[in-house]
């Protein structure tokens, strides 16, 4: 990203607040972690059911957790944008941050594939019935990619350029 764009992020109201209020950064990080555990927890319910580890969960019930995952993701998207505005010149060139963003996009594509390619079929599954192979691959990838996102985020402070 060009320095002009990064400067724009830095000058936003959110960016100014993030740098100006000393407790705001730790509070946002705490919120980012709360969002993380809620999102990963509900994703485990959905993905482990589809993979077949948690076949005791009725598929229809597992699908009810999808909006919760989206809500938790929104918390982390918003707090994440706040971090970026707070210190854009630090994040943009950070290799770990770039990997993390790439993985989130990949997870998003994977989620769209799940929603448009598998969701309707999965909703018709009987209790305890095995999902088809392709759906299992998507669900397994989802968990692996999000674990990658956690690693990418955790590594940001240690891979500064």
């Amino acid at each position, binding site marked *: 990203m060009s320095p002009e764009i990064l400067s724009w992020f830095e000058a936003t109201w959110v960016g100014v607040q993030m740098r100006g209020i000393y407790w705001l950064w730790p509070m946002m990080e705490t919120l980012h972690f709360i969002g*993380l555990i809620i999102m*990963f927890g509900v994703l485990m319910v959905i993905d482990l059911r589809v993979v077949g580890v948690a076949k005791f969960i009725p598929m229809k019930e597992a699908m009810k957790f999808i909006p919760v995952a989206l809500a938790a993701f929104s918390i982390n998207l918003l707090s994440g944008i706040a971090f970026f505005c707070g210190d854009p010149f630090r994040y943009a060139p950070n290799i770990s941050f770039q990997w993390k963003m790439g993985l989130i996009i990949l997870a998003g594509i994977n989620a769209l594939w799940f929603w448009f390619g598998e969701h309707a079929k999965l909703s018709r599954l009987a209790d305890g019935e095995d999902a088809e192979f392709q759906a299992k691959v998507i669900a397994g990838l989802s968990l692996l990619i999000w674990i990658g996102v956690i690693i990418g985020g955790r590594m940001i402070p240690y891979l500064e350029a």
Partner: protein
Amino acid sequence: MDFLSWLENSAPAIYIREDLWGYPITLSSHGIGMAIVVGVVVAVNMRVLGFAPGIPVHSLQKLFPIAWGGFFLNLVSGLALYAAGAVAYTFQGAFQLKLGLIVLGGILMKVLMTGIREGKSEGMIKLISIACLLSWFGAVVTGRLMAYLA
């Protein structure tokens, strides 16, 4: 105090502090373990509090081995991180509170599942569930704040 210094100067503690990859690898493991343990706690308690009622509550116990796997990962990575900064961590309020909340959260999880099995009143079960969730959220919050509080 002698013990804490010895711990800080043990080979794994030095490795974590001084190797370029020591902290990032250990902290990443700790983050993944956290997501697994507290993730299962969140899912089970959401169900207990009334979400997705079509899932039999007791069936979610089958997720516990996965949670224990995450817990073990965090015990090992947590001990390693502790060793690397034993003197400072031992007397840090946020760290002490975090450990207390993990113990409390674990006990409440056990009390919760026992209460459900024994058919305790719904109000009581939900109260324990909320306390359990708050303990685990508190453990995550105090853990995160360890980086900011002396």
